[in-house]
C-alpha cells in the first residue's frame, strides 16, 4: 500500500511489494479536481471489476474525494486507497484528510456542540456546512455522504466515518431485512464511539460487497423518496403557524 513511503518513515521491517493490478490501489494523494478525474479514469479499471461494479466504486471515490477537496481545506488534499478481498468478493475503500474536520465545517451553518452531532448532520440529506438553504449552494447540495451511506446500507455493508474524537459505524444488516433508507443515521443499525484519539480531519471507510452492486437503480428510487420526504418535512417545520386567540 505504500504507507511508510507516504509517511516518510524508513521501515525496519522487510516489505514485499505485491503487484497491485486486480488486488489493490496503493495509498494515493489527490490534491486537485483534475488529479481526481485522472485517478478515477486510470486507477479504478486496474481493479478489474465488472462495469456496474466499477461505476459504483468510482461513484464512491468521486463523492468522498470531492468532499475533501471542497470542504476540508487540507493542504495535503485527500489520501485514499482500496483493496479487493477475494473471499468476501468485496472492496474496502478508505479515504482520509487532515483538514478542518466535520464539526468545524458543519458549524459554519449549524450550531453543533460535539463531533458526533456534526457527523449526524453531515450524513443527513440536504445538510451542508456551506448554507442552511434547502437545495444547498450552486456547487453543493449536502447529499454526498447520504448517498454513500445509502449505497452501503442497500448493500448491507459496513460504512464508517471518523472525525475529531467521534466515530459512527453503520453495521451490517441481515439480508432478510426489507430495504429501507433512513434520513437520520441514528435510525440505522449502527454503533458510535465518542472518546477516541483525536483525529484532526476526517476519515471514511466503506466495504462494498460486489455481488450486490447491481441494486444501484433500485437504490436511487429509495434515495429519491427518502430525500424528498426529508426536504418536505424540513420545509414544513419552518412554516409559520397561524395564531389563534
Amino acid at each position: 500500500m505504500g504507507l511508510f513511503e507516504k509517511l516518510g518513515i524508513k521501515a525496519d521491517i522487510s516489505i514485499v511489494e505485491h503487484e497491485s493490478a486486480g488486488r489493490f490501489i496503493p495509498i494515493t494523494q489527490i490534491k486537485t479536481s483534475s488529479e481526481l478525474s485522472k485517478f478515477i479514469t486510470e486507477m479504478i479499471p486496474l481493479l478489474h471489476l465488472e462495469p456496474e461494479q466499477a461505476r459504483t466504486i468510482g461513484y464512491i471515490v468521486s463523492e468522498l474525494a470531492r468532499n475533501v477537496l471542497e470542504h476540508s481545506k487540507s493542504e495535503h488534499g485527500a489520501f485514499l486507497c482500496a483493496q479487493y478481498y477475494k473471499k468476501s468478493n468485496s472492496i474496502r475503500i478508505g479515504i482520509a484528510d487532515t483538514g478542518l474536520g466535520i464539526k468545524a465545517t458543519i458549524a459554519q451553518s449549524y450550531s453543533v456542540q460535539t463531533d458526533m452531532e456534526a457527523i449526524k448532520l453531515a450524513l443527513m440529506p440536504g445538510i451542508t456546512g456551506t448554507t442552511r438553504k434547502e437545495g444547498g449552494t450552486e456547487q453543493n447540495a449536502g447529499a454526498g455522504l447520504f448517498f454513500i451511506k445509502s449505497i452501503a446500507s442497500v448493500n448491507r455493508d459496513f460504512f464508517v466515518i471518523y472525525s475529531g474524537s467521534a466515530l459512527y459505524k453503520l453495521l451490517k444488516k441481515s439480508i432478510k431485512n426489507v430495504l429501507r433508507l433512513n434520513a437520520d443515521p441514528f435510525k440505522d443499525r449502527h454503533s458510535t464511539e465518542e472518546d477516541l484519539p483525536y483525529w484532526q480531519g476526517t476519515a471514511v471507510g466503506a466495504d462494498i460487497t460486489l455481488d450486490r452492486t447491481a441494486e444501484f437503480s433500485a437504490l436511487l428510487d429509495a434515495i429519491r423518496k427518502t430525500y424528498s420526504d426529508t426536504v418536505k418535512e424540513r420545509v414544513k417545520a419552518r412554516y409559520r403557524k397561524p395564531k389563534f386567540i
Partner: protein
Amino acid sequence: MKQINIFDRAGSFAENKDVAKEIRLQEIVPALSKGEPIVIDFTGVDAATQSFIHAMISDVIRQFGNEILDKITFKSCNETVKKIIAIVADYMQEGLADQ
C-alpha cells in the same frame, strides 16, 4: 435550439463538478437567458454523480424557477442518469418553496 454534449466535456463518467459548472455558466445559462431551449445530450455517458448534476442544473432551477425545466430536454440518458437528474430536480423544486 442549443445542443450540449456531456460526453465531449466530461467523458463517460460525469463526475467533475468544475466541468459541470463550466457547462452551466458557459452554455446553459447564456442560452436560457436568451430564451433559447436547450438539449443536454448524455449519449456515451455511462454514469453521472449527483454532485455533477447538481452543479450543472441546480442553480439554473433556482435562478429561473422550475418552469425552466420546460425548456430543457435531457437526451439519451440511461436509467440511472435519469433517476439522478430526477432526484436533483425534485429536491430543488421542493426547496424553492422555502425561499
